[in-house]
Every structure is written in C-alpha cells, then in structure tokens.
C-alpha cells in the first residue's frame, strides 16, 4: 500500500520532470532555428496579424471595462480617506504595472493561444508536420519560430493599447460619472507613474508572449493522434499557459519591485 503510493508519487514526479525537460528542449530548439536562415518575414507578419490585429477588439473591450471598474472601486475606496484626487494615479499604476500585461496576456491565451494549439495539432494529426519534415523543411523553423517571434513582438504593443484604453475607462467613470476633476485625474497620474513602471509592464508583456506561444505550440506539436487528443491538448495549453503567466507574474514583479 505504502510502496504503491510512493511509486505513484515518484512516477508522477518523473513524468512532470520529463515534460518540463521536453518543453525546455522545444524552446531551445525553436530559438536556435529562429537564428538560422531562411528568415520567414512573411510568416511572422501573418502571425502578427493573427495574434495582434485580431485580438484588438477583445483587448479593447476588456481594457475599457477593467479601467471602468477600477475607477468605480478606486473612487469609493479613496473617498474614505478624502483622496479622490488620487484616482488617476491609482487606476494608471494598477493597469500599467499589473492588469494591462496580465489581462491582455490571458485574453491572448484564450483567443490566439488556443487557436495556435488547435492549428498545429490538426497539422500533426493530418501528417502535415511530417510532410514538412519529409520535404526537408524544419517545422520548428517554418511553423513554431514565427509564432513565438510574433507573440514576443506584439504582446508589448497589445499591452500598451490595453493600458491606454483602461486609463481612459477609469477617466470616464471617475471624471464623467463620479465627478473627480479632470485635472486632478491626469496630474496625479503624471506625478506618480514613472518610466520604470511602463518598462516593467512591457517586460512582463514580452515574457508573457514567450510563455503563451511556447506552451501553446508545444501542446499542439505533441498532440496525440485523435480528435479527443486535440481537445485535451487545447484545454491543457490554455490552462497551463494561464497558470504559468500568473506564477511568472509574481516572480517577475518581486524582481522588478
């Protein structure tokens, strides 16, 4: 009884360790193929369009509502101390430092990450990845590297757009609905937000770009040969990417602080 338990725990741990190792090798291999010609500019542009442009609407929508609810919550909390004038700073800092990068990454995971897993998974099941291999075209270079590169380039931009719209959402609620003065909202923001905060947010967004594309392409690439396997892979990709984003966010924040 005890031995089976220990054996089970051991097997599970070894399995997880092995998976982590394979994921690391996958990432390293992607990076090494990225550095080798031919460079696939067209593929990268397509992916930027897919991951970035097509995510704009959902980013704008989540951005505005996040900003609005922050405006609302912030106003009632700050009013207790008579500090409504600091609303701009509260909204801007929470969005730029934390919510912008994290929420935009989670939205991109759900929208583009799941689609990446499904696309690559279907290519695996229908042997299109094997076909690339037989034509002496590296799937890592042709399929995976452009996605990773595009995600890394586009995430800071999506995050910036989220930030801007979110801050405007807070402004809408704070100034137009609850009567905070427009000058106080903007000047408190101006005096408290530093470049360091903005850079930090971008750095986070960039690293989230790596996580999303890495986890989601890996799961698609290693799909088992069935429709059920594809479903499982997509679910696992989204869950794992989201969890890793939140965990990594804690670590990187503690380093940046």
């Amino acid at each position, binding site marked *: 009884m005890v031995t089976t338990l220990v054996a089970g725990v051991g097997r599970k741990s070894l399995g997880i360790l092995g998976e982590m190792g394979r994921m690391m090798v996958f990432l390293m291999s992607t990076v090494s193929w990225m550095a080798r010609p031919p460079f696939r500019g067209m593929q990268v542009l397509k992916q930027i369009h897919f991951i970035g442009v097509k995510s704009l609407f959902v980013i704008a929508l989540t951005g505005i509502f996040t900003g609005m609810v922050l405006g609302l919550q912030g106003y009632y909390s700050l009013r207790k101390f008579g500090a409504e004038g600091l609303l701009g700073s509260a909204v801007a800092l929470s969005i730029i430092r934390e919510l912008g990068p994290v929420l935009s990454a989670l939205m991109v995971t759900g929208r583009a990450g799941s689609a990446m897993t499904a696309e690559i998974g279907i290519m695996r099941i*229908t042997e*299109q990845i094997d*076909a690339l291999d*037989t*034509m*002496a*075209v590296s799937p890592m270079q042709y399929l995976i590297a452009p996605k990773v590169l595009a995600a890394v380039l586009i995430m800071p931009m999506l995050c910036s757009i989220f930030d801007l719209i979110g801050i405007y959402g807070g402004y809408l609620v704070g100034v137009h609905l609850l009567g905070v003065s427009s000058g106080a909202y903007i000047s408190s923001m101006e005096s408290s937000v530093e470049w360091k905060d903005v850079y930090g947010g971008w750095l986070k967004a960039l690293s989230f770009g790596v996580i999303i594309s890495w986890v989601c392409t890996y799961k698609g690439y290693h799909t088992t040969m069935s429709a059920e396997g594809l479903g499982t892979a997509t679910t696992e990709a989204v869950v794992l990417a989201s969890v890793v984003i939140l965990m990594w966010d804690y670590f990187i924040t503690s380093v940046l602080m």
Partner: protein
Amino acid sequence: MGTEHTTPVIRLVGVEKTLGAQPVLKGVHLEIPRGKLTTIIGKSGGGKSVLLKHMIGLLRPDCGQVLVDGIDIARLSAHELNEVRKKFAMLFQGAALFDSLTVFENVAFPLREKSRLASAEVEPKVLEMLEAVGLTGMGHKFPAELSGGMRKRAGLARALVMGPEIILFDEPTTGLDPLLARTIHDLILETQRRFGFTAIMVSHEIPEIFGLSDYVAMLLDGVIAEMATAEAFQRTGHPGVREFIHVGRMPEPLFSAVGSGAQGR
C-alpha cells in the same frame, strides 16, 4: 530474393521498433531495389506505415540500421538527415496538403523552399505537374474544396515536383472507391515508368497490387515474411502469406453451400 540485377537503394538491417509497450517491428531485414515499384503488404495496424516512416527518418529504430545509398540515416543529425531527404518524397495517407495554401501553392511549396528556381520558372513547372496528375485548372482551389481522389492527385504532384529518386506511398488508395483506386494506381504506375523513380508503396489492395508492382514484400508479425517479384510472390509457399493473399482474392462465401462453387477461382 530476386533482386540480384539491381543494387538496393534502401536496405533495412535488423530494424526493431517498440511504440508504447507494443513491439511493432521485430528485426526487419529488407532491400528495396532501385528504380522499381515495391509494395509492402500486411495486416492493418501491423506496422507497415511505421516501416515506411523509418525509411525517411520520421521514426528512428530502437536498434538496427536504415541504409539509404549506404548511409545509415538512423545515426544522422537533423541537418544531415535533411540532406538525405532531398532524395525523397512521400505521399501520405490523407495526402497531408497544407490547408492554408492553394493546390498550386502546395505543389510549388517544395520548389520555393528547396530549389533555386526563379519564381518565373516555378509556375510552368507546377502547371506541368498538375497536368501530369490530371488536375489542370484546379490550382486555385484549397485542399478542403477537393475530393479525396483529387487530394491524392495533388499530393502526388507535390511529391513529383522536385524530381525525387525515391517516393514513398502510404496507402495511396485508402478511402477511395474501387474505380478511383484504380485510377490512382494507374497514375502511380504511369508516373513511375515515366520518371523512373524508386517507388515504395504500402497497401492492402490485393490482388490489384500484383499487376502493378515489380516486387512485393509482406510484413507479418513484425518481420518480412516474404519478398519476391510480384509473379513469384503469388506462388509463395509461406502459409501465413498464402492465407493473407488468398483471403484478399476470394470473396468470403456467404453460405457454405454456395461457397463450394466460389472456391474454384
């Protein structure tokens, strides 16, 4: 083995492969003669496709050698393997066309990726190949808009376009009706005679493949049970092979009383 007149282009020596916990190949010895059409038959799920994938390095053997023109491809790095793969093309079971590209772009893909042809030279070459497989005027369509038979044709055009020395066919007629299967078989035979590549086909279309192939080999229980010219193969003395090819040739009698007449074939 009947291959004494030609040097083998691919030679498998003691290839073993276990997938999961299932031993699939248990010491395969096989020589593929150059410039001929060799068909590998065997039971469904018996490891024929696995065997084929070893020949092009999509799978690596647990032990044994896969020699392509004398080079053991099981020991090569990814880059060296890509060099050897330039001799190959493969037609997959589902054709494995790229969904996001049109038929034209699919056929042009290996040329654009791997040849030094200028883009002006690519087009006539692709159109020629589409014509050779009977897909003239279909270049603008996407794979999803094609029927199964047309997808196989497009896959064949993509396999032919680089002028490979060796083409692997993974069950090229699975899922097609008998008439369409016949036309695909004819197309394979015709292009093989015309371009002179070495063709290796995995199939269980018995007896059709006997009229088509130069050599036939049978994979049985993880080893090559028999390999001979198509003609000699049909007279084999191996009981397992005989059983397999004769079940394929004779429709199973519905009633034993009627069956006695049918067995005379």
